[in-house]
C-alpha cells in the first residue's frame, strides 16, 4: 500500500515537473539567467507549489498520524550549520552549470537525452561521495577522541 501510494505520488510529481517545463534544462537556465532574456516561469512554478503545499501541509498535520504510517517523519535539525550552507552553495553551482536538479533529471531519464544520463551518473557518484565523506570524517573524529 505504501509503495502504491508512493508510485501515484511520484507520478503526480513527475507530471508537475513535465507540465511546468522544469524538466527542460534550457528553461531552467533561462530562468537563472536574470541578466539575459529572463524566463520567469520557474517563479510561477515555485509560488504555485508553495501555496498548495503550505495550506495542504496544515490539513495533513491536522491529523495525528499519516494514513499509511505510524508517524510523520520530519527533519529534526534546526540549526543553520556549515554543511547546510556549503552543500547548498555547491548544489546551486551544479544547478547553474547543468540546468538540472535531482527531480527533473530523474524524470527526464525516460526521454533519451544522452547528456541527461551523463548528469545522472555524476549525480549518483556525487551523492555517494557526499554521504560517504561526512561519515568517514565523523568516524575519524570519533577515533581521535
Amino acid at each position, binding site marked *: 500500500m505504501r509503495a502504491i501510494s508512493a508510485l501515484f505520488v511520484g507520478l503526480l510529481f513527475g507530471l508537475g515537473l513535465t507540465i511546468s517545463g522544469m524538466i527542460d534544462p534550457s528553461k531552467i537556465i533561462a530562468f537563472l539567467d536574470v541578466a539575459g532574456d529572463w524566463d520567469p516561469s520557474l517563479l510561477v512554478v515555485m509560488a504555485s507549489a508553495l501555496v498548495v503545499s503550505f495550506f495542504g501541509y496544515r490539513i495533513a498535520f491536522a491529523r495525528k498520524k499519516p494514513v499509511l504510517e505510524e508517524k510523520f517523519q520530519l527533519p529534526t535539525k534546526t540549526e543553520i550549520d556549515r554543511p547546510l550552507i556549503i*552543500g547548498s552553495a555547491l548544489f546551486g553551482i551544479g544547478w547553474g552549470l547543468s540546468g538540472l536538479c535531482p527531480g527533473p533529471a530523474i524524470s527526464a531519464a525516460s526521454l533519451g537525452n544522452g547528456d541527461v544520463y551523463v548528469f545522472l551518473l555524476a549525480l549518483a557518484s556525487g551523492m555517494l561521495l557526499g554521504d560517504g565523506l561526512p561519515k568517514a570524517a565523523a568516524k575519524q573524529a570519533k577515533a581521535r577522541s
Partner: protein
Amino acid sequence: MTLSSFLGPAIGGALIGLSAVLLMALNGRIAGVSGIVAGIMAPLRGEGRADLSWRAAFVAGLIIAPLIVSAVRGELVSVSTPHPLWMMALGGLLVGYGTRLGSGCTSGHGVCGVARLSKRSFAATGMFMSTAIVTVFVLHRLLGV
C-alpha cells in the same frame, strides 16, 4: 508572459505542491527527491535496504510521468541541454555532493521545507538560488558560454 505560457507552470507547480502534501498525508514523508534517491543507494554504502520499495516506487512514478505527457501530446517532451557535456558531468557531481551535504534539493528544501517554514530550508533555498544565478551570470555574461 502570456496566459498559455503561465498556465503550464501554474498547474505543474500546483501538482508538485499536491504531491508533497500527499506524500506527507499518506506516507508521512518529505517529498525530497535527493533524500529519496540517496535512500535507494543505501545498500551501495553497505547500509540496510529499509524503505526501498516506496522509494523505488516514487522514482518509477517520476520516470513514467513524462512518457504519459508525451503520449497525450503525440510527441516526445522536449529536453534540451544548452551547456557543454563537461558542465553536465561537473554539474551532476556538484548537485549530488551538495544536496547530500546540504540535506536537500529544490523539492525537499525549496518546496517542502519552505512550506513548513523551516529556517534551515529558507537558508538553503536562498543559498542555492543565489549561487545558481551567479553561476549562470558568470557563464553567460562574463565567459560567453
